[in-house]
């Protein structure tokens, strides 16, 4: 797709019919977690969308986020979306290296000043910049320079969004998140370790069509992070009935009961895994029998054992009307808020919650 072409023009030139375009829009709406009623609006916006320039900077990261995105099997939608952006700099994916690569970054920043989208994965070491440099430039300097001319910044992965694993105690590099350093630009946080591929493309598509998405208090797009895993979990009816797996191989585990007592962080974790799922919609950790680790929440690595149950909410949680889209959400959100409060106060007091405690509470 040429730079001045709109997406609509590009698709028609490829010989794609209006029906094909409508199909593309329906799949895009589903990908962006927007209601199907939005399809006409999406069609209109995509028809007119122009190719934005994207600069992708990788700092203290494991490349898992890039892997997540590029290993997602090349679905047509994602392919077309990537056809519609101009990825001017990404040091893992680009062919150029060394001075050539850095020149390309600088040229694109100059040419598209004020208009490009800056994507960042990885956290930034500030106690000693020597921990991570690119072409001799410290991560902090490179970020600040690239941020200045950006229209918006997308922090991909928990490291860029919240500091992630590099920031886990004792944080040897003094790792910080993008939003710790930049205060004067719109920042969209797309956390997850790694984030779900369609969530990454969905956010980019949203930016392409409707501009910045609506964000929650942690800067995450509400369309994907608006519900907790627990709100949309298919094991939720068991939670509501108080049916829990106690070990990984007991009767409850075999029957697919709730994994809460095995440490599931679903109630305090906001992400789209329970509906979007992984590996082309095949499954997600809870469906595979493992509790949610809470990887899209700040400090998930330091929030206690993955296998230790969250402190129990004491409010009224007996609901079974769970057509989650509507009814479940409000209740789930309230429980999660209670849980979050509990978790942080428990953390402050360094108090451990054990299965015994849980049982005491559920009996009382």
């Amino acid at each position, binding site marked *: 797709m040429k730079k001045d072409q709109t997406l609509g023009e590009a698709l028609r030139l490829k010989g794609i*019919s209006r029906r094909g375009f409508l199909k593309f829009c329906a799949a895009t709406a589903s990908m962006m*977690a927007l209601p199907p009623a939005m399809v006409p609006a999406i069609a209109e916006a995509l028809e007119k969308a122009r190719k934005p320039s994207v600069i992708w900077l990788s700092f203290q990261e494991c490349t898992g986020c890039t892997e997540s995105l590029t290993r997602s099997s090349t679905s047509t939608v994602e392919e077309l979306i990537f056809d519609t952006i101009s990825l001017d700099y990404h040091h893992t994916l680009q062919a150029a290296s060394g001075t050539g690569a850095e020149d390309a970054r600088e040229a694109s920043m100059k040419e598209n000043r004020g208009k490009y989208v800056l994507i960042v994965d990885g956290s930034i070491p500030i106690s000693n910049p020597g921990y991570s440099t690119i072409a001799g430039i410290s991560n902090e300097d490179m970020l600040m320079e690239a941020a200045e001319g950006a229209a918006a910044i997308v922090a991909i992965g928990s490291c860029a969004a919240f500091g992630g694993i590099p920031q886990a105690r004792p944080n040897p590099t003094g790792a910080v998140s993008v939003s710790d350093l930049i205060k004067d630009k719109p920042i969209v946080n797309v956390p997850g370790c790694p984030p779900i591929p369609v969530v990454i493309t969905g956010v980019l598509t949203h930016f392409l069509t409707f501009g910045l998405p609506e964000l929650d208090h942690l800067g995450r797009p509400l369309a994907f992070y608006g519900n907790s895993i627990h709100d949309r979990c298919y094991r939720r009816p068991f939670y509501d009935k108080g049916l829990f797996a106690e070990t990984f*191989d007991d009767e409850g585990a075999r029957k697919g009961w709730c994994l809460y007592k095995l440490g599931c962080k679903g109630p305090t974790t906001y992400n789209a895994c329970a509906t979007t799922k992984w590996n082309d919609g095949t499954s997600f950790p809870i469906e595979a029998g493992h509790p949610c680790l809470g990887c899209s929440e700040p400090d998930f690595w330091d929030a206690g054992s993955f296998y230790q149950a969250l402190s129990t909410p004491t409010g009224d949680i007996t609901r079974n009307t769970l057509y989650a889209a509507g009814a479940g959400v409000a209740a789930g959100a309230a429980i999660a808020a209670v849980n979050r409060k509990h978790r942080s106060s428990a953390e402050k007091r360094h108090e451990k919650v054990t299965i015994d405690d849980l049982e005491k509470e559920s009996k009382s």
Partner: protein
Amino acid sequence: MSDLYVTMTRPDSIDIRVGAGPRDTGNVAPLLNEVRHALVQLLDTGKETIIDLRSIPLGPGESERLEETLGEGEIEAVLHSLGRSTIRETAYPGVWLVTHYNEEDEIMGKFVEVTHIPQILKSQNEDINEGLQRLGSTLEQTH
């Protein structure tokens, strides 16, 4: 906490039964109720409803169960554009199941449409116009 690990058995001794147990989210019945409501609305006001099945939490096997319940009706059409799409009327007239696949035949979207005819089946003006021009030039060449 520690007895959690002590009581673990060896993986090969775990009796794994695929699909065993009632893994019901309870979301199928409300979904069918929503479809019924949408049908009443279609008859009364002509208003169409589209439900994105990917936005609803369904447990293993539930999606298949939903499709089984909806059954097969009189019409099944296949669209070939950006991979195939199947557009099938279910056993309940006015309730259609639309599934979009990509070129690798992976599902890109699955919708229940409550309508007289899904929009995507109709010939689109842009395509009609393009076809009209092609027909015009064919006629010019033959005369």
